[in-house]
């Protein structure tokens, strides 16, 4: 009887893990649609190529060595077959690998419309093979940071990855944007920012809803279990809070945009939803639904200010707002944890955030500079004018003028 109960729990937890992983995998579709909607139409086929390419690269590199670097488990998943403690070992790899792809997806939107496709792919190889797994080994993997200190000694807490996944992706994106520079024509001679409108807002909206849905897997799956009363209660609360925070982010961003710009801005509402989700990701397990809504709402306010400040003051050209949504709000998410989780301190969260940022930003900057020197990072001016769909992919996403 006891063995049958164990097998039932084991099967259910494994099943839960796999379904949640599939939801997170679906976030790759969300990022693709969001980014395809927010770039200009002449750069659509290329951003979609980037998105499906980076997903495949992330899965392959993490399988080759990344997972071993982060958690052990053997090169080429050598030791992964068979039984784990409470769920199948392979289901753990499957759940983790889709997180790597999410971190890498964050980069593609920020460097859109001007980066060479293969430079991006090679960055994706190194990022998902080494840079992200090393950072992950210090946090979820529990390893010492270069043998110096251990983040768990500071009580660093990041439930599903506001910092470990989202801020890390944004740090790599920021490094890329700084090396790459703004899109041609983004800033006039006086340095004023000029809007470059996304070509397809229905796609951007669809992408946001897909990400919102995928996030239930991202946060809900991070409970790591469902087959007991205790874990089922935790999962339900995480679902409720994840949803509440996204809603809070939308409402806050809508109201702020209306008050500040005089009109409601759809793209800010979309970024507000994602900001709410990023904000709650570090600690969706402890707040009440109302507090989760407020944490998301603060994220929604931060993201609107951050997008405007990055764009107009700091001249950091991020076509989809990825650095603000995932980086700035990711930091807020980490700092919001101590508000409801009394085992966690602000100091510990700051140490963790700084460790992640310094490593990912530093390693990524070095890699971007190296790639710039070796193979070039940016398409030519003429290629940028014509659009990277033609120059990198040789095709158009919307071939509307057909003569035969």
């Amino acid at each position, binding site marked *: 009887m006891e063995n049958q109960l164990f097998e039932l729990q084991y099967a259910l937890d494994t099943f839960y893990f796999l379904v949640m992983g599939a939801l997170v995998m679906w976030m790759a579709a969300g990022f693709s649609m969001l980014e395809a909607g927010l770039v200009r139409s002449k750069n659509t086929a290329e951003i979609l190529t980037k998105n499906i390419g980076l997903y495949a690269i992330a899965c392959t590199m993490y399988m080759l060595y990344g997972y071993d670097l982060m958690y052990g488990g053997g090169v080429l998943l050598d030791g992964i077959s068979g039984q784990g403690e409470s769920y199948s070992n392979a289901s753990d790899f499957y759940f983790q690998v889709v997180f790597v792809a999410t971190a890498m997806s964050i980069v593609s939107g920020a460097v859109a419309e001007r980066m060479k496709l293969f430079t991006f792919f090679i960055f994706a190889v190194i990022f998902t093979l080494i840079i992200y797994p090393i950072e992950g080994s210090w946090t979820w993997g529990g390893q010492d940071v270069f043998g110096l200190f251990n983040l768990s000694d500071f009580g660093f807490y990041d439930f599903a990855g506001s910092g470990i996944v989202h801020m890390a992706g944004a740090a790599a994106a920021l490094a890329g944007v700084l090396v790459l520079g703004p899109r041609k024509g983004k800033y006039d001679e006086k340095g004023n920012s000029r809007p470059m409108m996304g070509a397809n807002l229905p796609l951007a909206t669809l992408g946001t809803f897909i990400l919102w849905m995928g996030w239930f897997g991202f946060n809900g799956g991070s409970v790591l279990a469902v087959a007991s009363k205790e874990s089922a209660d935790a999962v339900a609360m995480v679902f409720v809070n994840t949803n509440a925070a996204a809603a809070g982010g939308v409402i806050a961003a809508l109201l702020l945009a209306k008050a500040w710009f005089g009109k409601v801005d759809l793209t800010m509402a979309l970024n507000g939803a994602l900001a709410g989700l990023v904000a709650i990701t570090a600690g969706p397990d402890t707040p009440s639904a109302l507090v989760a809504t407020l944490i998301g709402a603060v994220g929604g306010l931060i993201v609107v200010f951050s997008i405007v400040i990055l764009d107009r003051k700091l001249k950091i050209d991020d076509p989809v707002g990825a650095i603000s949504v995932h980086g700035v709000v990711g930091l807020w998410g980490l700092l919001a944890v101590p508000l409801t989780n009394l085992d966690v301190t602000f100091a510990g969260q700051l140490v963790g955030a700084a460790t992640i940022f310094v490593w990912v930003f530093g390693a990524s900057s070095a890699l971007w500079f190296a790639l710039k020197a070796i193979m070039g990072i940016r398409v030519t001016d003429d290629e940028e*004018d*014509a659009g990277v769909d*033609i120059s990198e*992919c*040789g*095709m*158009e996403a919307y071939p509307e*003028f057909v*003569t035969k």
Partner: protein
Amino acid sequence: MKMVTVIIQPKRLESVREGLSEIGVTGITATEVKGFGRQKGQTELYRGAEFVVEFLPKIKLEIAITDEQVEQVIETIIAKCKVNGGNIGDGKIFVSSLEQVIRIRTGETGPEAV
């Protein structure tokens, strides 16, 4: 009065508009068009098959002006579109005479309506 029809590279539209505004042109109609001249087309790729798209994206401007403005308008357009010594595909300017112009709101006709 003259009707000036201009074919230019899409990326030049903004600087042409600014240049023409500065010399007192009060209205422009712009259309996204496809066409070819000496530049011919561009090679595209679909599922491994190469093919030449003979028609490239261009912008067509239609500008109604008075006779006195013609020379300055042409100079301005050339100055804005011939960059770095000029390239094949920079475009063409067609000037034709314009019989009548009427502003619908006021009923003004002739040069005053331009």
